[in-house]
């Protein structure tokens, strides 16, 4: 591990943007064009009346790079607000995954048992498969998926992280 690597931090950034054509391409293009990392990205409209979407990006870099990322995002014309949740106080971070497990016998029962422990729900079932729905932070989802791997895991769909600050203040 080099000295630069040791300085790498993960930040969750919330961005309020105009919901207009090309806005996501602008944000993603900024990251790829300037060589920044995207660990996770989610986007959806959050305020239809004002035509606003919210993008949540989990990114990594040195403190100087993270500052640059925020400054570069703020510079984009359709961006209203950039909030670095990681530095602005406690925040809640959630991700949803749909996990398909195929199998029979003891493995099938075991997968159900683990799902119960993780408070995952069965949202689809056949004689030979389950689809579980699980919500939590990234670490919890990783753990669940890892446990399912030997039990017949065949497919995973994850939403990426949505995050919001704790407390009364809004973005």
């Amino acid at each position, binding site marked *: 591990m080099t000295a630069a690597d040791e300085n790498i931090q993960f930040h969750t950034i919330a961005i309020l*943007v105009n919901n207009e054509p*090309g806005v996501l391409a602008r944000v993603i293009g900024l990251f790829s*064009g300037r060589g920044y990392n995207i660990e996770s990205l989610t986007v959806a409209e959050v305020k239809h009346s004002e035509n606003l979407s919210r993008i949540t990006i989990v990114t990594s870099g040195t403190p100087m790079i993270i500052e*640059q990322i925020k400054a570069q995002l*703020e*510079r984009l*014309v359709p961006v209203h607000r950039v909030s670095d949740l990681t530095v602005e106080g406690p925040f809640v971070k959630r991700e949803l995954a749909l996990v398909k497990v195929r199998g029979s016998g003891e493995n099938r029962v075991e997968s159900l048992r683990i799902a119960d422990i993780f408070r995952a729900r069965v949202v689809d079932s056949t004689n030979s498969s389950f689809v579980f729905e699980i919500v939590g932070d990234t670490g919890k989802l990783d753990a669940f998926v890892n446990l399912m791997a030997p039990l017949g895991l065949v497919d995973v769909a994850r939403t990426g992280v949505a995050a919001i600050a704790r407390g009364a203040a809004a973005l």
Partner: protein
Amino acid sequence: MAIKKLTGAEIFLRVLKDQGVDVVFGYPGGVTLSLYDEIYKQNRLRHVLTRHEQAAVHAAEGYARSTGKPGVVLVTSGPGATNTVTGLADALMDSIPVVCIAGQVPTALIGNDAFQEADTTGITRSCTKHNNLVKDVDHLARVLHEAFYIATHGRPGPVMVDLPKDVINARGVYVGPDKVRIKSYQPRVEGDIGLINRAVKLMAKAKQPIIYAGGGVINAGPAASACLEQLVHATGFPCTLTLMGLGAFPASDKHFLGMLGMHGTYEANLAMHHCDVMLNVGARFDDRVTGKLDGFAPKAKKIHVDIDPSSINKNVLVDIAIVGDAGRVLEDMVKAWKSTQAKAKALKSWWRKIDGWRAKKCLSYGNNGKLVKPQYILQRLQAEIKDRDVYVTTDVGQHQMWTAQYIHFEKPNRLMTSGGLGTMGYGLPAAVGVQIAHPEALVVVVTSEGSLQMNLQELATVDQYRLPIKILVLNNGYMGMVRQWQELFYGKRYSESRYQGEPDFVKLAEAYGIMGLQAERPDQVDGLIKKMLAHDGAVLANLRIDPTENVFPMIAAGASHHEMILGPKEPDLAETGEDVVLA
């Protein structure tokens, strides 16, 4: 009463009128025919036909940089739009306000690989400050006004608007510029007064200060340059400028140390290296300026004034960062300096050091009398133009650096050069834009045979509009800067940097209806320059120069300011440490 609806083409012209635009640079095509028809029907707006869309953007850049007003470009879809990419990227890097309007295939055909279709907004997204595809004629006026607002507010830059043919032909509602407000884009122009006071305090305590200013001061308007001059005189600090900043402070002022950076002067770079307080106004710590980052001004407290928050702490961590317009901040700084009656520490010993560095005369060169030295040509040109108000454009490479070193810019907006992107082919079309903006002024292009041939077709534009541009070609038969690096760093292996075969430039000029001149010997230089400047039309002057001449001083890529190479014969003369005694 029903609101009167206008066609998209009429709206386009109305926007240009309300924005005070009187010239557009462009090239027509299939989908912009209706716009051109509208241009034909009126006499207010002037259209300048270039011979290539890239040149139209460079012309708009030259127009913008020499006037402070946005340059406007009109091109067609597909290749018309893709040809603008280099120009837009150039304008983005150098913060030049340009509004580029491109035609697009009808909305119903977008995505169908129609004739002359290109994903213009997709292609230009990363080489513009902002861009937009207009799909509804009722949004057209707003989007165009917004384009002008974005191009000229905050850090200036190019904005592209993509106009489908059916939108140009449809009828819609016009809104004026006063109705336009972009909620999500309101750049800060006033600097934080608390930070400005802290900066002034720091400056007052400095023993070895320096002011390092860049293109941001020029973009902030002539008043900003005047404030810079006031600040320098109030403080008595030395001042150096970036390539993009030349002219923001008078070159003849004794406080001026010349340009800094890779080919900057010895005194400017050593003053940067040894300073204890650095005030950077409107420059961005570019790698060509800083050299090796961890060796950059190691002892300095750094103050950075920039209108773009993303420029701050991007390359160099600073101690005080002031976000704001260079002119406003400089004005407040001068006020703060005067009102706190801050007095600079006695700077005598600092100036003594600087004078020691100056005494090196780092821009001297050997003049052997047989071959023409490019430095000599530029010195002669400088002598001839020093009492005139001259606009100079350059291309990119050795001749560009020599121009920056030997031509003295006393006023802002007088040097047009491609700094950030380093676009060969910029000079001639930029001069077209400058001459259109200043029909009576003397406009000189300093270029080389390599760069000139990258947009040679613009000689036809020069001819068509009878633009009396003086084109000075420093012809060494090489891509000079490439050749220089190959000589210094690649064992003199001159891979593909020699032009074998070139046109007869005099005949070429004459073929375009332009006066052609040629010189090969030093004793012909003076006569050639005089003849060129005396002619009332365009001139292309081809000067054969010493092909082995290199640009010095030089900081090699990845070296620090104090590790300069001063000249070909004395590579070790530069200071290597604190204790080196200077002549």
